[in-house]
């Protein structure tokens, strides 16, 4: 009787969100062995500081590109050549938190040249080159604290922006102020970084100084709204403590609309203020010399938002907006208030009209606030709980992620009606449709990047993977196809058709173009040289030996620099290099490349070194010895391969 009652009660309980996967899901994500995926998916590595590359629709991990964090696997930040890439005004910073991914655009569509990513902790923007899938450039940002609303870009990659998440006193000694003087002394800067059309080189073009609030996310206008940039703000309460409560008081925060074409005019007219005495690092990696270098900049030009009419406007947006997303036409701007019960959709045309007719409801920090209704196109009613981000399918629909109610919701941009909703597992942050922020989205899939996985995969102790969930959106209903775990924490991601990238992929570096000062272009260049207490070993590696592979005459107290050139010119033929007791890492050297490992021996003896990448049938033979003698002894500096130097004495 009791058990019957129990089962009856169980039957009354609504079914959980264990969404069914329909029969043809496997077929839709199956990419046969040896076949290529349709899309490259560049996924932020979150607190790993790296950028991961997955294939879609298979969800196969293709590569992890080291950007802001050390990567001992690839020698990133360990080789002498790559160390400058992690340089900042604070010194060498070995880690960061990579949140957002932006593929470079031409005419509002992905052009497959570069990926820009942001460092959230020590504010920086990096550019990854899609011919090498390597980080080519890192630019630090002054006057910033927490670079979150970044690295969103304009429709022709004119600018990559960075908005400070934490408003802070501006850099310099005047920044030593009491924390509770936030309202008076803390400022929010928006950095506009220009990108060179030919080589991608970044430069801090100008900063806009605004009242102190938290900048969360941003998007450039496109099409009709090209020339404008939209930043979401929260903490317009200007609280400096217990933000959880104190920054959630206002019914509405703001979206800040910035007219960056106007900013360019003001700059030309000399309205910018040159700020000096700054220090921020600019790191570039040269693929010819295979070497990075750091230069420090000391100044920038600042435009003060409240002093320059027509540069900035606030649009009220309910409850601490997170995502601010612009539809493919550029007309509709979607704000996602984290704690709001509706999704407001703003109209660019209405906003322009409101500015012309001065339909303002006052000012905040000297910047006009457009009336909410004057800029509003309409509100999506009862969309879900905790809207965060919106992407577009190119068929007039938007899909919004909901963190609290853990779902994706599809709605129509024109009539603002909810069309479909599907649960996610669990608590989606960002979502991504391939090309979902471009003028021409490829509305075939949507991916939810989830913060919590709990029971979705085999348990691995308290620390679990986060995940991506792939849905088919080609039909009316979103259909779950695949879960796959990701590295770090996936925030934003973007995906591009493989054709736009794959044929440009570099296979080898040409040895004759190698301009490294430490290159050995062939065995005849291989040598060992002493310069004071530095010993420079110019090694070549080719299947299956190092030249030289016997080295003597090095003394305790010497610093040894192994400059290893991989003289292979064959695709997929890297060699590695590791030496016993090295306190840094290994080298992984691509064909035609030179990389340097610094090694400071700590005792006398003979130390083996070897190739770490299983390069060939005789890989295990690819090894050598270096002898370390006591300081001041008379062992001559000699090196050899194949024949013993000096000639063996018979005992």
């Amino acid at each position, binding site marked *: 009787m009791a058990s019957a009652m129990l089962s009856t009660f169980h039957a009354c309980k609504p079914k959980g969100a264990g969404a069914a996967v329909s029969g043809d899901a496997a077929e839709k994500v199956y990419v046969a062995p040896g076949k290529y995926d349709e899309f490259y998916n560049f996924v932020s590595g979150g607190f790993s500081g790296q950028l991961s590359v997955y294939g879609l629709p298979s969800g196969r991990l293709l590569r992890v590109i080291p950007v802001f964090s050390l990567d001992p696997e690839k020698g990133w930040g360990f080789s002498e050549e790559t160390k400058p890439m992690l340089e900042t005004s604070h010194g060498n910073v070995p880690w960061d938190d990579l949140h957002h991914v932006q593929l470079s655009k031409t005419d509002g569509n992905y052009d497959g040249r570069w990926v820009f990513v942001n460092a959230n902790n020590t504010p920086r923007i990096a550019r990854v080159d899609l011919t090498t899938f390597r980080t080519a450039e890192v630019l630090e940002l002054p006057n910033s604290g927490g670079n979150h609303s970044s690295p969103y870009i304009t429709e022709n990659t004119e600018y990559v922006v960075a908005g400070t998440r934490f408003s802070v006193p501006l850099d310099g000694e005047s920044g030593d102020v009491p924390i509770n003087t936030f309202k008076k002394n803390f400022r929010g800067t928006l950095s506009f970084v220009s990108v060179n059309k030919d080589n991608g080189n970044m430069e801090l073009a100008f900063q806009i100084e605004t009242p102190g609030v938290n900048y969360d996310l941003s998007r450039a206008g496109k099409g009709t709204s090209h020339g404008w940039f939209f930043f979401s703000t929260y903490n317009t309460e200007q609280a400096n403590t217990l933000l959880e409560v104190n920054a959630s008081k206002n019914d509405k925060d703001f979206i800040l609309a910035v007219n960056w074409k106007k900013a360019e005019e003001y700059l030309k007219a000399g309205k910018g203020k040159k700020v000096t005495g700054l220090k921020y690092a600019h790191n570039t990696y040269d693929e010819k010399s295979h070497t990075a270098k750091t230069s420090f900049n000391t100044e920038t030009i600042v435009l003060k938002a409240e002093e320059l009419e027509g540069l900035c406007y606030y649009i009220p947006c309910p409850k601490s907006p997170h995502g601010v997303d612009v539809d493919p036409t550029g007309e509709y701007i979607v704000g996602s208030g984290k704690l709001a019960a509706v999704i407001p959709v703003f109209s660019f045309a209405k906003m322009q009209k409101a500015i012309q007719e001065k339909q303002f409801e006052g000012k905040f920090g000297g910047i006009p606030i457009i009336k909410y209704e004057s800029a509003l196109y309409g509100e999506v009613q009862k969309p879900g709980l905790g809207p965060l981000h919106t992407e577009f399918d190119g068929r007039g629909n938007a899909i919004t992620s909901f963190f609290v109610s853990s779902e994706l919701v599809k709605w129509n941009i024109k009539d603002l009606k909810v069309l479909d909703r599907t649960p996610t597992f669990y608590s989606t942050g960002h979502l991504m449709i391939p090309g979902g922020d471009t003028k021409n989205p490829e509305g075939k899939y949507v991916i939810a990047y989830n913060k919590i996985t709990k029971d979705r995969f085999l348990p691995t102790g308290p620390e679990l993977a986060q995940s991506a969930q792939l849905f088919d959106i080609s039909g009316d209903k979103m259909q779950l196809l695949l879960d796959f775990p990701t590295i770090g924490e996936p925030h934003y991601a973007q995906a591009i058709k493989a054709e736009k990238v794959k044929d440009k992929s570099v296979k080898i570096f040409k040895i004759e173009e190698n301009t490294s000062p430490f290159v050995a272009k062939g065995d005849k260049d291989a040598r060992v040289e002493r310069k004071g207490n530095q010993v420079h070993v110019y090694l070549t590696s*080719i*299947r*299956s030996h190092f030249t030289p592979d016997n080295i003597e005459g090095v003394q305790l107290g010497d610093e040894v620099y192994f400059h290893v050139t991989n003289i*292979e*010119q*064959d*695709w997929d033929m890297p060699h590695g290099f590791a030496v016993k007791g090295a306190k840094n890492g290994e080298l992984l050297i691509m064909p035609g490349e030179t990389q340097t490992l610094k090694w400071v021996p700590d005792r006398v003896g003979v130390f083996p070194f070897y190739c770490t990448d299983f390069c060939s*049938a*005789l890989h295990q*033979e690819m090894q050598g010895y270096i002898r370390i003698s006591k300081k001041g002894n008379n062992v001559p500096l000699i090196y050899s391969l194949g024949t013993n130097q000096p000639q063996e004495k018979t005992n």
Partner: protein
Amino acid sequence: MKTTSHLSAVHRILLILSGLALVAVIFLPIWRIELDAAQYPEGLELQIYSNKLAGQVDIINGLNHYIGMKTLHAEDFIEFKVLPYIILFFALAFLLTGFVQNRKLLYGLFFCFLLFGVAALVDFYIWEYNYGHQLDPSAPIKVPGMSYQPPLIGYKQLLNFGAYSIPDIGGWIFILCGIILAFCTVREWQNNKTLKLKSYEKL
């Protein structure tokens, strides 16, 4: 008797065109050896021109060190110095034969061209034999009784590599020129015989 020494207009045009085509052969790859292995799904290629080696020579040399094969260098071959001149000689000889009305010259050219073709193949075979057999005794990979002579023409498995040896575009042109020359020679010989017969009948 003068008429009997004339070549037909068609044959003359064919010979002149062949002569011009042979000039092109000097600059085109004549022979190719394609190599396939599990690790090289995209294949490796060695192309032989009249004056040089092309394709992935360095990669093939790198791989060949395992079996102790001598590395290939164009400057080691006298062939690459003389071959362009020999082909040029034949190109001019074709043109000359096309312009000069002499059947004996045609027969002579056919004989020389045939002889050259055979000699070139023999030379290529010896070349392959030497490289395939003269191996460094200290090579890392030694398979008892194994030699690595690539096929003269066609396919052969050499350890993990499949070697496929075939004429390249220049080689095919060369062969076509030979066939045209043979055709012209035979036809002219036949014409000549009937003409002679007719001349006898008139007498």
